[in-house]
């Protein structure tokens, strides 16, 4: 009987894997198929659309902008959040609830509502500080806050922050050393998760950038799609594949430590 149940579970697994796999792969395949169509009904497959990506400077700029934004946002959010969360855990545990609530707020506010709030601030920023698209990373930092907070919170919960930092302090470590050399190495996978979520979110962001009139990857994609659908779809597939590649790469970076502790 147990054997039967095991077999059933196995069948369920395979069916679920195929179904969900198909669900994810089909659209990507369809996009790829579309982007490699030739001109005319019987034209052979062609990579012309893919090769054409480089010939649209706006597109290239959009890609570069989004990559820079992703990097800046994920680094900034970690630099701000890690010390804050450690500090709150150690010194202000009563504030933890409040901080958690605040950091989850952006989840409940629709992006379009955020834009309404951001608009005057970005007008001011553009006039007085800089109108660079990279200032978008402020808005994006708020957008990724809930995800980054969750990921880091899980990481910090898994270690004894208080004892480890007190031990380090008693050995002569100042706060920067405590965070950089004791806390960070022990929450590395949480850091990677937070960074990954931030990168994925920023690369896919459209609403805020479009409404604040900044041409990031998604905005460029949409505008290019109006003139040349084939190239725009090619870029979309490429950006998806790039995000996957990044995801896999990041999860591999986190691997060695896990393997080492398995030896124990």
């Amino acid at each position: 009987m147990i054997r039967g149940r095991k077999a059933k579970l196995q069948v369920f697994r395979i069916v679920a894997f195929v179904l969900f796999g198909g669900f994810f792969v089909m659209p990507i395949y369809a996009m790829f198929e579309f982007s490699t169509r030739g001109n005319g009904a019987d034209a052979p497959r062609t990579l012309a659309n893919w090769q054409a990506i480089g010939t649209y400077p706006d597109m290239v700029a959009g890609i570069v902008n989004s990559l820079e934004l992703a990097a800046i946002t994920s680094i900034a959010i970690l630099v701000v959040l890690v010390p804050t969360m450690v500090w709150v855990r150690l010194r202000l545990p009563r504030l933890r609830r409040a901080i958690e609530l605040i950091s989850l707020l952006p989840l409940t506010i629709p992006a379009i509502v955020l834009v309404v709030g951001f608009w005057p601030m970005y007008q001011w920023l553009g006039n007085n500080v800089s109108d660079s698209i990279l200032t978008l990373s402020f808005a994006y930092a708020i957008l990724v806050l809930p995800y980054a907070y969750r990921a880091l919170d899980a990481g910090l919960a898994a270690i004894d922050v208080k004892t480890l930092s007190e031990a380090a302090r008693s050995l002569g470590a100042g706060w920067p050393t405590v965070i950089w050399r004791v806390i960070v190495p022990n929450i590395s996978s949480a850091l990677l998760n937070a960074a990954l979520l931030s990168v994925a979110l920023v690369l896919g962001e459209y609403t805020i950038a479009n409404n604040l009139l900044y041409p990031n990857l998604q905005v460029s994609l949409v505008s290019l799609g109006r003139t040349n659908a084939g190239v725009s779809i090619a870029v979309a597939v490429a950006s998806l594949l790039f995000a996957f590649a990044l995801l896999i790469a990041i999860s591999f970076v986190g691997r060695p430590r896990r393997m080492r502790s398995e030896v124990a």
Partner: protein
Amino acid sequence: MSTARPGIEVRLENLSRRYSGVTALDGLNLTMAPGELVALLGPSGCGKTTALRLVAGLEDADGGRVVIGGQDVTNVPANKREIGMVFQAYSLFPHMTAMQNVEFGMQLHEVGPAERHKRACEMLDLVGLSAHVNKYANQMSGGQQQRVALARALAIEPKVLLLDEPLSALDARVRARLRDEIRRVQLEVGTTTLFVTHDQEEALAIADRVGVMNAGHIEQLGPPTAIYSRPATPFVAEFVGLTNRLAGVVKGGEVEVRGTRLPLVEPDSTDGPAIALVRPEAVSVAADGDLSQSPLVGSVISTVFLGATSRVTVDLGDITVLAQLPTSAVGAITAGTRVRLSLRRDPVLIARDDKAPTEA
């Protein structure tokens, strides 16, 4: 040993600390002689850990001073106090090997790599872990982790060594062994040490002096033997060792307990009813002689074999009395045996009912 250096005097002066209205430390005074190991012993919530954390600088005092080697460090942050600390919870950095853990503090103190490695090896050797230098915390047992923590704390040649219940997470056998080891290492390096524990056996076994704490202050400070045999207050008597509480009457500097007159530790106590605190080893048990007349006749409820000694619980009708005697003297005494108790005429402490000591 090369790391040995003369100990440093540590003074806690009138330290106090409150947590949101609750007084954890209430004007604590303690002077530790250079190289001395003082154990702070007390029930949970008595302020012993708070005292240690104030010395470490991990918490701020509301009043009073901490003086280490003649220097007032009350406002010096923890990382500048040059203290070594071993925690109750396992505190090794999980991403470092035992060796790296021990080297960490020296690195922060800018000890050169060669010297660092040499001293780390010495320290790990001192705690008997030469064979485990490349292991991570999750590859070591609890006892080994605490040894590494000890080596790590001592590697920076701290002015004071602070041990915050370092043995409580370990099982009984490892605990006894590591306890003796801590004492050996401490004597070898000669560092002034403050050891906090709620385990009286640990405190009595390891310390030069024991401070029994209650409600934020030290009730009695003295050598283990004095704490045990001449407790200064009923609280100390009850907390350190087992104690029988026998109702009696104080009269003329003695207390009469069920027909036996016992001398008092404080002979000038006022007359009247009182509770005499009698140690189990001051009670002897006999199964022969006159078993009818004495008010100290009862039947044995149980005998517990403890090795060299045995503990006998006797029901006197209205109360039960614990007696501890050499196992060889137990002989035919078993549960149900009628026995006669006699009380050794050691000076005893008395408690009045209104200030009954706290439960240990």
